[in-house]
């Protein structure tokens, strides 16, 4: 049995495929954090006073906080003074005017990653706001989107061009006081994406960002803000992959989503940062705060995530269901292998009447991986007829990994219906043998079984992302005909 477990592990144990490093000159601020660094970041970005003050308030608040300890994650202490809080790729002038102005090494990096930056994007229907380290270097299809009144740009640009919108919505879902990592992000965030869909507009293409960590000891502090005004619709894709690095790298992103009346936001993530080596050395520490606010009646927000990378994943994309009849969804596949740790889940906060939420969590643990689902379903006193359905399934490969489920349920309204189902299974030797006895090789068999396990989540991803997700799991997508 032990050898069986080992063999399974070998199959899922492929080296990290995206590990390469691009030599770029970077404009990096000296390590360490104090008020001057915060002011410097703000000044480098030529920010208006309200932004600088907001950052400083966040910084001062951060000083009063301690790292959270309630998760199941274990890591050596992070030295926040050893991190450089600003790094931007150098380009010829002040900033790239077009793709031709972008460092060719950077473009090659994207090419290797398969990020579509050229014409073919248009055919694929994807607009890419590529983030390299801390500054956006390319934004495409802006003109096309602008015709519809859609704003899709880097966060820095939004601060310059649309300060009123930024001021109105920034921190309105995740306040700067929210939690240790979100507060840190609020003080030092470098860049990210901003998106506004005007009333009644359906965004005609999937919007997408690609993140990449590349500079040594540079924390990544992305900030994303997406607003769907009344009756608007947008589907947003976030993909991440990083080059092989030895140092642990901190990533503390914040994503805020706001859906007004009748609006819908779909947010999908495929995360493949460097997970560390087989012994657990290196790898990204990923502490993310993602939250959506169904602010208007009949609004809808869905999170879909495929988490395969990072040494540590600490992430709970949540939905606040304020508007009556609003709907929140969370679907997640989280895979941990070797010494990876994931503590991830969601919070569904039911405030409005007739609000509905669905949670589907698929955790896969292999090697010494540790996988925890942590979810809160909260129904407030006035949230009549709230409904939640939660399903948490764990799949274990081998016998040295672990999966845990921590469901928290707080119901203050007697009309609420909250259902929870959970299961844990092991990739069975019998399943594997059954496939093999049909002529299917063990690698393909494992892929098939894992894909089957994740099916309910994968089917929610846009096609191109689903393809990426299955690649990340080292599998071939099920069901061109299935």
């Amino acid at each position: 049995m032990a050898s069986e477990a080992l063999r399974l592990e070998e199959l899922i144990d492929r080296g990290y495929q995206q590990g390469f490093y691009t030599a770029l000159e970077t404009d990096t601020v000296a390590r360490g954090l104090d008020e001057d660094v915060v002011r410097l970041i703000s000044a480098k970005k030529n920010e208006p006073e309200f932004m600088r003050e907001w950052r400083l308030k966040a910084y001062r608040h951060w000083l009063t906080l301690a790292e959270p300890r309630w998760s199941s994650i274990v890591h050596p202490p992070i030295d926040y003074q050893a991190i450089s809080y600003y790094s931007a790729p150098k380009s010829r002038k002040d900033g790239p005017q077009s793709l031709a102005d972008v460092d060719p090494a950077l473009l090659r990096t994207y090419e290797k990653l398969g990020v579509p930056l050229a014409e073919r994007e248009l055919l694929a229907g994807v607009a890419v706001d590529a983030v390299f380290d801390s500054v956006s270097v390319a934004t495409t299809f802006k003109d096309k989107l602008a015709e519809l009144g859609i704003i899709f740009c880097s966060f820095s640009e939004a601060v310059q061009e649309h300060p009123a919108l930024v001021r109105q919505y920034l921190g309105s879902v995740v306040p700067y006081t929210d939690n240790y990592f979100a507060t840190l992000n609020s003080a030092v965030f470098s860049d990210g994406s901003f998106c506004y869909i005007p009333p009644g507009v359906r965004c005609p293409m999937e919007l997408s960002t690609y993140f990449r960590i590349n500079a040594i000891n540079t924390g990544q502090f992305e900030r994303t803000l997406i607003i769907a005004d009344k009756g608007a619709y947008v589907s947003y894709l976030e993909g991440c992959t990083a080059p092989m690095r030895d140092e642990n790298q901190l990533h503390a992103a914040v994503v805020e989503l706001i859906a007004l009346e009748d609006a819908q936001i779909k947010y999908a993530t495929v995360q493949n940062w460097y997970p560390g080596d087989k012994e657990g050395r290196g790898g990204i520490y990923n502490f993310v705060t993602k939250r959506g606010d169904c602010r208007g009646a009949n609004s809808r927000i869905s999170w879909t995530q495929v988490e395969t990378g990072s040494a540590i994943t600490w992430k709970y994309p949540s939905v606040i269901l304020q508007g009556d009849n609003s709907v929140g969804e969370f679907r997640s596949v989280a895979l941990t292998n070797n010494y990876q740790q994931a503590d991830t889940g969601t919070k569904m906060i039911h405030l409005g009447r007739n609000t509905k939420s669905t949670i589907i969590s698929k955790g896969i643990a292999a090697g010494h991986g540790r996988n925890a689902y942590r979810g809160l379903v909260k129904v407030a006193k006035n949230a009549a007829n709230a409904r939640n359905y939660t399903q948490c399934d764990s799949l274990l490969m081998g016998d040295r990994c672990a999966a845990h489920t921590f469901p928290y349920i707080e119901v203050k309204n007697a009309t609420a219906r909250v259902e929870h189902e959970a299961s844990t299974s092991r990739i069975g030797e019998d399943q594997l043998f059954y496939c093999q006895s049909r002529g299917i090789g063990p690698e393909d068999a494992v892929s098939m079984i894992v894909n089957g396990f994740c099916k309910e989540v994968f089917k929610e991803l846009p096609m191109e992302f689903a393809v990426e997700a299955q690649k990340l799991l080292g599998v071939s997508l099920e069901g061109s005909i299935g």
Partner: protein
Amino acid sequence: MLEIINLHASIDDQPILRGIDLAVNAGEVHAVMGPNGSGKSTLAQVLAGRDSYTVTAGEVRYCGRNLLELSPEERAREGIFLAFQYPVEIPGVANIYLLKAAINARRKHRGEAELDAMDFLALVKDKLKFMGMDEALLYRHVNQGFSGGEKKRNEILQMALLEPRLAILDETDSGLDIDALKVVAAGVEAMRSPARAIILVTHYQRLLDYVVPDRVHVLSQGRIVRSGGPELALELERRGYGWIDAGEAERVGAAP
């Protein structure tokens, strides 16, 4: 086609097969019978390559090759098919997807082009009709929520699609209603051909009424203790296994 010589196999150091000798030629149907726990499924699974069993002695030759050297998937691609006594459920994986992957793995192995979706569907629908199965089963997850009989029929459907050279059916007749038994038996009978060998593991004469075997073997405590023609199965049906076990004990006891 298949030659088993003095095969010993154990699990967790506990011997289960204790010297099996059996030869099966192309075109023949052999029935393997024997009491519960005598090692019939073990034999079937060892032939299919399950690695939780350790072969401790003996040899298996298949079409002139050493079968024990091959991985389970290689054996399958070389034409061995095992219909499981307990077919395995694979949640989330559409039945049709498994079927297509299995067929194409075999075709690839033979250097043939993979079947495209249209050709595959045509083929599968044809076999489905023959098995009297509902098309909806193709799109359900592999064996998940299938009734006992549906699982068994699904195994025979796979066999019909994969057209094995050596088919081993482990109690495919158990748990079938009378009509289903006829369908399964017809499926097996249709597979009978001069180029193909079939091993039927069964407890009941019912199946052998439809598919008359060339040889019948009785397995007891990991050994073949009696072989004969179809009449042996009839005799077992009448007398049970007791008389054979007693005879076996005598014979073994008398051995020097």
